[in-house]
């Protein structure tokens, strides 16, 4: 699907605080709703940017829990539907893997 990229030159107004800004959204990195909302006004319009800027979705669970909620918050600030935002890029390993295990890579022999 084609994701619409928000026109970064179009103003989206000023950040204004909301009463539930202190709500934790990314549980692993303890990133709040307010931090995510503020980042949008700093110019972070994609989920990958939010992740790189704040670490939301970059913790131990790699965004499995908060991904959807971050998307909803960002979309709301941008005034678009969450479906228009691409989710953060999923990357291996899909679950944490101990370095020792990861380094022992087999599979050449049949």
């Amino acid at each position, binding site marked *: 699907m084609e994701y619409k990229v928000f026109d970064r030159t179009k103003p989206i107004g000023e950040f204004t605080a909301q009463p539930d800004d202190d709500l*934790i959204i990314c*549980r*692993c*990195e*303890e990133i709040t709703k307010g931090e995510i909302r503020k980042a949008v006004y700093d110019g972070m319009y994609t989920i990958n940017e939010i992740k790189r800027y704040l670490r939301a979705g970059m*913790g*131990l*669970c790699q965004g*499995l*829990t908060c991904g959807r909620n971050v998307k909803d918050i960002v979309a709301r600030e941008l005034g678009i539907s969450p479906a228009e935002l691409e989710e953060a890029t999923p990357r291996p390993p899909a*679950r*944490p893997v101990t370095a020792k295990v990861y380094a022992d890579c087999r599979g050449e022999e049949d």
Partner: protein
Amino acid sequence: MRIAKHPILGEYEKGRKVKFYFDGKEMEGYEDEPIAAALRAAGVTTHRHTRRNGRPRGIFCAIGRCTDCVMVVDGEINVRTCITPLKEGMRVQTQYGLSAKEGTEE
């Protein structure tokens, strides 16, 4: 908090009873059940305190995805207790940020 007998499942198949240590305190659980299940049965619900705000956390997804239930197990941090099988003599410690509190080893 264990279910003695379930109307549909009857009695649960469990491994042998084993001893383990939670923050130095001796506890009992069944071999190969998740550490988190043994702790919940023993009434322990706080697995760790978060790094940034020191908030208590416990079981959340129970299938190894959310990583909220991580603890220090046999000295290793960030062990997902909901999918890590309990073994005889395991040392399980509450995780504070990235480590266990000193003095909770034995």
